[in-house]
């Protein structure tokens, strides 16, 4: 066997096969890009994330304040919009990114990835396990990455069909509307407990902090603030509901477009055996998809519109992904790998068509 020309990552419809040497070269190029960006981090990124933190707080104060006079329809609308904006930025550009440790280099105790807590029903440590560890390490590996369909949606032909999948378009709408609660329960792996793959005791052990955080979040938005508002109880309650709904729909859309668009690939568990750094990088590229848009769109997506760059460099401040994207794209082109990107609507339509198509018992052969 000749190692130099041995193909370790097979070709697929959109990507040519890569040899071990090519994978190593890709690994080196991306490592170099990463070190260059890390070395350049400084005052600019530090003051940026502080500004983001300030924006989240000012808009939350403004939004909740306006809802206190929410009997006036314009105040309700403005308050709800501001609060939704605040929650979206808190979740994406601030919370998600800080919790990846993207700003750990600042050594600032309030921005540390391993202790940060966000305005979200999902408890921080559960998120760090299910997202930072499982999803980012085993991205799109069947049976390992629990974000593939979140345990109950069938999005790829390789997933086994079950009758319940017939109603998955409706389930997906419900998940989108209640996304933060879905994420909150995700790490408890209730689907695997039901199927007897995880002992009940594990849920019992993990559930306490998760439920405490979820309860606290519920109490804050639906009890505490409405009560504080006194006569404005109802507008505050409905405003908080609407803001959470808007945030849930938006984050669902962005996240589903990151891994479930038409051209993303999933991988059998065997790819993990002796996977090189380069092969890991290529798996991240083939398993993720980007969204095109303007600066405000990228900001509101927490720069997860650069999902490919995020998966290559999850702990690099996301505000740098746009700059890195050109180099990543160049690498993809030179090595014959497709760089999966498109507008939000193109990508989202392909996600919806996946949800609908794989609700039916097509197998891999039919789907292809």
């Amino acid at each position, binding site marked *: 066997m000749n190692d130099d020309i041995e193909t370790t990552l097979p070709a697929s419809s959109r990507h040519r096969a890569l040899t071990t040497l090519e994978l190593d070269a890709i690994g080196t190029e991306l490592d170099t890009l990463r070190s260059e960006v*890390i070395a350049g*981090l*400084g*005052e*600019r*990124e*530090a*003051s940026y994330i502080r500004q983001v*933190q*300030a924006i989240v*707080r000012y808009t939350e104060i403004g939004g909740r304040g306006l809802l206190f006079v929410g009997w006036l329809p314009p105040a309700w609308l403005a308050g709800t919009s501001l609060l939704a904006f605040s929650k979206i930025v808190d979740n994406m550009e601030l919370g998600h990114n800080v919790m990846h*440790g993207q700003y*750990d*280099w*600042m*050594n*600032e*105790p*309030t921005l*540390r990835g*391993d*202790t940060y*807590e966000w305005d979200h029903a999902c408890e921080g440590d559960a998120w760090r396990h299910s997202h930072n560890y499982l999803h980012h*390490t085993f991205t799109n590996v069947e049976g390992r990455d629990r974000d593939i369909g979140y345990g109950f949606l069938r999005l790829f032909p390789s997933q086994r069909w079950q009758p319940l999948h017939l109603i998955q378009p409706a389930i997906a709408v419900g998940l989108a509307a209640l996304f933060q609660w879905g994420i909150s329960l995700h790490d408890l792996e209730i689907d695997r407990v039901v199927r007897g793959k995880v002992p009940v005791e594990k849920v019992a052990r993990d559930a306490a902090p998760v439920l405490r955080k979820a309860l*606290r979040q519920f109490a804050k938005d639906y009890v505490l603030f409405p009560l504080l508002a006194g006569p404005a109880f109802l507008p505050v309650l409905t405003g908080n509901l609407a803001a959470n709904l808007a945030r849930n729909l938006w984050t669902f859309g962005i996240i589903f477009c990151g891994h479930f668009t038409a051209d993303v690939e999933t991988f059998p568990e065997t790819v993990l055996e002796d996977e090189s750094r380069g092969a890991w990088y290529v798996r991240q590229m083939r398993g993720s998809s980007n969204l095109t848009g303007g600066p405000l769109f990228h900001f509101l997506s927490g720069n997860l519109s650069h999902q490919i760059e995020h998966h290559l460099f999850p702990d690099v401040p996301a505000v740098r992904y746009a700059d890195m994207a050109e180099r990543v794209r160049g690498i993809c082109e030179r090595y014959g790998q497709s760089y999966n990107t498109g507008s939000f609507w193109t990508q989202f339509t392909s996600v919806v068509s996946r949800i609908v198509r794989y609700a039916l018992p097509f197998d891999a052969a039919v789907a292809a």
Partner: protein
Amino acid sequence: MPTRSPTPLVDTHWIDFALQHLDRTFSLTRTFTRVVKTRHETADMTTLVLKPNRRFRGFVPGQYVPVRVAIGGVLHERSYSVTSEPHERTLAITVKRQPTGTVSRWLADEAEPGDVIEIGQAAGDFVLPASAAAPLLFIAGGSGITAVYSLVRAALRRRRDANIVLLYYARGHADLAFARELGELAARHPLFRVAFLPQVLDDGRAPAGRFSSTHLATWAPDYPERDAFLCGPAGLTRAVASYWEDAGLTHKLRREAFVLGSDDDRTDRVAASVSFRRSVRTVQSAAPTLLAIAEEAGLRPSTGCRMGICRTCTCTMVSGTVRDRVTGAIESAAGSRIRICVSEPLGPVTLDL
């Protein structure tokens, strides 16, 4: 493993954020200070007078405070001795500007009145003994004078007629900090004697030379009876400590090891294999500390003083054997909590990082 206290009903970061709109030093949890003035003691030593917020719990003379400043977006921490007295309303620290020091250069060159600087609570056991009876001997070198100056003043405040000898080593006469203040104290307190011992020829006088038994014989022939305090650079502390050891007097010597043993550039160190469990990474490195190895590997653990004081970098050692570079203690118990900034691997080590 990070520990968190149960989240209070209202996030304290939120309250701090609001408070800092009123005054940038206000905080419920962190000790911020405002720079009141800065004063040059020598060409490379600067005193910063700070007004702390109400989180500061005070200090005992001889202690240091951790000082945190954000430079280039990164929060750096170093510890400096307090050189003011406990009854004053402000807090003074005296900083020696290191030619390549990130924090000391910033404090010496950039800090100005009005700036807000974060500090931590005072710490350190380089303090006066509870009993005030015994005569005292202080040996200070270079920036080590900062802690010693505090102790001398506190001892004289406690007893006007305290019997004190201070041997103060510095490069040249111009490098003696607090020389005027110490001279005035000696004039007011007849039993306090201070010997300025510059190492280079200047003012037309011969250099005093390094610490020796002659200095002791001249200034403190009764040194075995004295409670001795030592703070200075590695060379001086080694010389004095071994002298006291040879005399069987180690129990009478207190020392502040502000500077780590300078064997960072030792070349005989063998590369150790260090695994970072949570980061799923294993590296081979001959770097002197686990912190340096972790940073080489691209990890960014929490750090504070980087000299074994503040415990910010404490983490769990899953397995392995390490040596504490400050105390020399060997630790090999699985699951022990170690400070990685001063831990040197003595073989393969696995950390929960």
